[in-house]
């Protein structure tokens, strides 16, 4: 059989503020009908641009060269999307190729019902009555697994959960039964448990609808789970192309090997050396939470939102506690409460011997020198108007260890060195550093006063995998060097597994399981933990197939 899409020598350039930027260079690839092709790569590798080119969705500022030959499902009709414009391009979109977007909450128009939005796509391709279009919408919603579609076809996007929204987006893509779906990071915005369901749905798309899928992702686990064939992109170019088993088992290119090697894997935590002693033997806990409750006050008649309800745990000196949970589980709230950013509303939380319930800021301020905090987003955690050196010196200045940033410079240099940043970076501004470099600087700042407790709130979730691996490595190194206790917050079990001595699992504000890393990950007691573990795709197609079966078993038993 022929191909659904045949990309030949594709080049894309953009006009940006910095001038001309090449996004895709000399790209060649084909997708066969019913095939799932994954394009992987880190940010800026050009994978998303490639995907958008297939639909002719690039903005005016892009200049495209080469050809993207798109065939319809039956394979009789082929168009070069690059050459198409206006009405002809519009006809192809949705009929021959459709797209699934990364963020379902932005890909759905908030002010129209999902039924209307699905019907828009249908009615754009031929004279189809309103009623008939709606029937088609109900039908497709049912097929992507939306319960009670007759009623929910008239719902607005915000009335669906995140996973259901993504199902709706997929339904929209499927409704005209195109031969190809381009899925741009379709699960990145979702929690792992939901991600597994969406991946199943995409697999069904192929199996039931016979649709080919171009899957754009950075997540090697997702690739291993779903793809038939993989294309690796790096710096606008295609570096390697292979079927999925081959790629994971014997990657040819150095870059692919690095990429695969950077992916954190479950079970790697075991090599951290001897299992830590029970924490009670390590002295007075640095953090001790007993029946901790945290509420966010409601605005104007809204009942208060209880983010954390009755959580009890401790962090011993020198210990790394990993706090894991999906979005909304309250893990970030706990971290913020320990740092005194969010007030505690009930129970007890003792931080370095200070009871946080009802504490006054002025009483807590001196204690802050003992606490370091690393924020999730390195882009926003630095004052853009201060240099890196000034930012890192800030704790020293505030706590009177140095008169001003200049006086602290030698100490700042030491710190930068400790986080493997060149001294010269101190005089740069935050935006002149890459994400990984900024996160290192963030670590340097957090460690400036040699704190006894470090709180790291998803410190690597905004970073590419290879960068993430290096930052995590650094974190571990520093922890061993300085011996601080740490609360490491993450949604990624594999990441936590790499660092944490003990792991605590949160579900909807409640602590459902806590224990040594190996115990929690190796022999989870709580069904949620088990499902969480099983949902996490591993970067190994063979193993992942087995895990998928395990997940299905778990789901069916629940």
């Amino acid at each position: 059989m022929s191909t659904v899409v045949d990309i030949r020598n594709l080049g894309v350039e953009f006009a940006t503020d910095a001038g001309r930027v090449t996004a895709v260079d000399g790209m060649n690839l084909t997708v066969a009908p019913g095939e799932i092709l994954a394009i992987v790569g880190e940010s800026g590798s050009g994978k998303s641009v490639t995907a958008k080119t297939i639909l002719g969705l690039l903005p005016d500022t892009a200049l495209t060269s080469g050809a993207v030959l798109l065939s319809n499902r039956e394979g009789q009709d082929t168009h070069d999307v690059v050459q198409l414009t206006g009405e002809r391009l519009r006809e192809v979109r949705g009929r021959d190729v459709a797209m699934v977007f990364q963020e379902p909450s932005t890909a759905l128009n908030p002010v129209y019902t999902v039924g209307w939005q699905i019907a828009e796509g249908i009615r754009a391709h031929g004279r189809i009555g309103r009623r008939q279009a709606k029937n088609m919408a109900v039908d497709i919603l049912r097929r992507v697994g939306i319960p009670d579609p007759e009623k929910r076809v008239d719902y607005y996007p915000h009335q669906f959960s995140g996973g259901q929204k993504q199902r709706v987006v997929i339904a929209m893509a499927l409704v005209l039964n195109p031969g190809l779906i381009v899925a741009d990071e379709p699960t990145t915005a979702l929690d792992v448990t939901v991600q597994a369901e969406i991946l199943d749905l995409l697999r069904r798309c192929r199996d039931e609808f016979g649709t080919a899928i171009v899957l754009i992702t950075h997540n090697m686990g997702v690739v291993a789970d779903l793809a038939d064939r993989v294309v690796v992109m790096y710096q606008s170019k295609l570096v390697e192309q292979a079927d999925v088993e081959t790629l994971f088992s014997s990657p040819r290119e150095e870059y692919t090997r690095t990429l695969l090697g950077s992916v954190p894997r479950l079970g790697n935590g075991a090599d951290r050396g001897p299992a830590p002693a029970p924490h009670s033997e390590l002295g007075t806990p640095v953090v001790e939470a007993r029946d901790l409750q945290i509420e966010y006050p409601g605005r104007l008649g809204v009942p208060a939102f209880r983010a954390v309800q009755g959580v009890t745990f401790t962090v011993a000196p020198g210990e790394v506690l990993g706090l894991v949970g999906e979005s909304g589980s309250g893990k970030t709230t706990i971290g913020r409460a320990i740092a005194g950013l969010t007030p505690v509303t009930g129970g007890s939380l003792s931080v370095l011997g200070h009871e946080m319930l009802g504490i006054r800021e002025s009483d807590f301020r001196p204690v802050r020198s003992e606490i370091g905090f690393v924020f999730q987003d390195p882009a926003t955690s630095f004052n853009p108007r201060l240099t890196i050196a000034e930012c890192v010196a800030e704790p020293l200045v505030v706590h009177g260890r140095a008169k001003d940033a200049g006086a602290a410079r030698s100490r700042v240099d030491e710190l930068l060195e400790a986080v493997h940043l060149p001294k010269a970076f101190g005089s740069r501004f935050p935006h002149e550093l890459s994400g990984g470099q900024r996160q290192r600087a963030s670590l340097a700042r957090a460690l400036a006063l040699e704190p006894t407790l470090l709180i790291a709130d998803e410190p690597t979730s905004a970073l590419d995998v290879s960068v993430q691996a290096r930052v995590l490595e650094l974190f571990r190194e520093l922890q061993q060097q300085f011996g601080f206790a740490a609360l490491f917050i993450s949604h990624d079990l594999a990441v936590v597994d790499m660092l944490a001595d003990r792991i605590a699992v949160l579900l909807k504000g409640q602590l459902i399981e806590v224990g040594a890393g190996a115990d929690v990950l190796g022999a989870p007691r709580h069904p949620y933990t088990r499902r969480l573990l099983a949902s996490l795709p591993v970067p190994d197609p063979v193993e992942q197939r087995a895990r998928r079966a395990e997940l299905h078993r778990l789901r069916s038993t629940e």
Partner: protein
Amino acid sequence: MVFRSATAEQQTPRKPSLFSRLPVVAQLRQSVGLQRGMLIAGVVLTGMFVLCALLAPLIAPYGFAQSRVDGVAFGRQEPPSAENIWGTTVGGYDVFSRVIWGTQTALAVVVIAVVLSIFLGVILGLVSGYLGGWLDRILVVIADAIYPFPTLLLAIVMSIVITGGQSSLIGGILSAAISITVIFIPQYFRVVRSEVVRLKAEAFVESAKVIGASTRRIMFLHVLRNATRTLPLIVTLNASEAILTLAGLGFLGFGIAPTSAAEWGYDLNRALADTASGIWWTGVFPGVAIVLFVLGLTLVGESVNDISDPRLRARKRLKKKKDVSA
């Protein structure tokens, strides 16, 4: 959201010179095509008026309250001639000279009003936004109440209150400027406050808090320095509004007396009665001056706004390989 600040930043690999980071200049460098054209047109127009204001004594052939030269009166409502190139007003003054001198009045009012309102508005917005509490709530309610109120009416009442009805040059300019300030403060207050509230939740402010920095240090070192991002834009837009308000005051007869200063709104007011008699030159010239000055400032303001907003900024469309060298 995560990538917000990444956008503008990633594209500047080197630290640009101070000059090129100045508002307007920075945007001019970033702009392309029509957007650039509009910005340049705005800058040129505005610059022209500022020059006129500075060089008024050189440009204007006569004084703004001069009705005769060498003892010979110009005559009243004389049509444009060699002596009075844009004719004379009903008061017997030279229209051209009054239009030129009028730039001085307009500029003075704009500068005073904008400076005063920025100063007060920023302080209030910062304190209110960062500290919150009852002070914040009260200020917000007051600002909300005043904000949508027709500015001109407020300006009229304020100008009566401030001058006690007197309209000398300094008094007139000051009162117009202060009246306009009173209207603008809520605007600056709201902009700065919302910016401060946004910044308050930013990671870098929280990280300063975690470090243990004092409230004052956070407010001034971390928040204030970042909250002023949007001010250049509001300044240009408000400057144009200030001119319109001044003209409106003058038009309604609450402005500056003709013998104290030249003021376009006043001249327009007087010219209104001339329309039915077909005397167009007394009104058209000062009117066009207002329109062009406001147009210039608005073009600058809006272009700066569009260019600083990546969603609205135009970028060069790439042509086929031919002009790669360009």
